[in-house]
């Protein structure tokens, strides 16, 4: 066992972990943070995407021990994030989820897309989202939701509001 110290959703956390444990299993099994979903466990589906040191990361492709000293944010930690509030509403309004299994990863990635590429068009969103698999929606609703959220955030920025 190795001692792992991280900043998890804004609070310091220390746990003993087995070196082979992925960040995803650490979050779900040791921390009981089950918003992070595990689909493929080899980097193909994107459901387990979390934020490590500000960067969206496949938590199945990272050992928990590799995150020692780093900051990790899961969807739970983004509950009050202003951009996530807009995204959540747009996902609802645009029917961007059905079963919801892929949604945590989609939301975390959508937030990163909007932070790096403000007000993206459909083509940009589709390219940026290509690492995330959804077996229900056919993607149209998800893409529409992210484009709509980008527009709304762009408008509120022009008006000088917070988001």
């Amino acid at each position, binding site marked *: 066992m*190795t001692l792992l110290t991280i900043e998890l959703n804004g609070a310091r956390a220390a746990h003993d972990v*087995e*070196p*082979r444990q*992925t960040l995803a*299993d650490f979050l779900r099994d040791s921390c009981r943070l089950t918003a992070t979903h595990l689909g*493929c*466990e*080899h*980097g*193909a589906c*994107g459901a387990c*995407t979390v934020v490590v040191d500000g*960067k*969206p*990361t*496949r938590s*199945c*492709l*990272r*050992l928990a*021990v*590799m995150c*020692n000293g780093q900051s990790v944010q899961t969807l739970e930690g983004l509950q009050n994030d202003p951009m996530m509030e807009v995204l959540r509403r747009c996902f609802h309004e645009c029917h961007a989820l059905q079963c919801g299994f892929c949604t945590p990863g989609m939301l975390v*990635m959508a937030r*990163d897309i909007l932070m790096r590429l403000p007000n993206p068009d459909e083509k940009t969103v589709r*390219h*940026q989202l*290509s*690492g*995330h698999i959804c077996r229900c929606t056919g993607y149209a609703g998800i893409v529409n939701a992210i484009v709509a959220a980008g527009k709304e955030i762009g408008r509120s920025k022009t008006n000088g509001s917070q988001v």
Partner: protein
Amino acid sequence: MKAAPFDYAAPTTLSEASKLLASAGMTTAAIAGGQSLLPMLNLRVALPGLVVDIARLEDLKGIEAARDGLRVGALTTHAAVEDGAIPGDIGRFMQRVASTISYRTVRNHGTVGGSVALADPAADWPGCLLALGARVRIAGLNGARSQAIDEFVRGQYATTLTADEIVVGFDLPGADTPLRWGVCKVVRKSGAFANSIAYAVSRGRGGPATVVLAAAADRPCLLPTVADRIEADESAGEPLLAAISKDVAAHVSPNDRYLTRLHTSTVMRAVREMQNR
């Protein structure tokens, strides 16, 4: 989909890392971004006894101007290159290559050094760095060495690295010379292994040209006939196609008409993009 047990060490110096990698009686693996190794661990294709995390080694970080070129640290991530961390024409060429590697989440952690050290025949960086004439800087228990990338990569997942050695970075020559470049990658689904990648670079009009085809053989290969053709007369259409066909046939059986056509197309598109730049 859960890795078998292994030990883990996160050394802070190169010599410590080399000693750990050379641990007697044990299979060891270096890990940097882990974007190739983690799937192999999870699928139990790779079964190391000890994983040595080299992501904290300062010697492997940074991008700086060196004598007549650029020195790029092995830990430079694909995302950093995509976001413009490497300056000049070389940087713009590498930016384009980086932007089509897998997905952003993978690019955030995957490293240029890791890609070259693994030497997957369908990887993006070995072919790109071959086109740029890069040298690989390596450190191990016997000190440091440097080797041209076409000598470093020996075949599928095969390099000249010994167990204790680590790729430290890359020297890219000619940072001050204007570079024209083109690249064409065909991949059926983003994140999958490439079916074909072609790179064409030329140092000034009529200057030395290099054309590389990756994902066709067990390692990226130079296409010398095409490069000669470009240097001799850039505008030639039919002779260019003949030159591409000759070089592609050296690596792909002409009986496989799909692959022949695929590789011919990517090389032609890369050359055309370079010529139009």
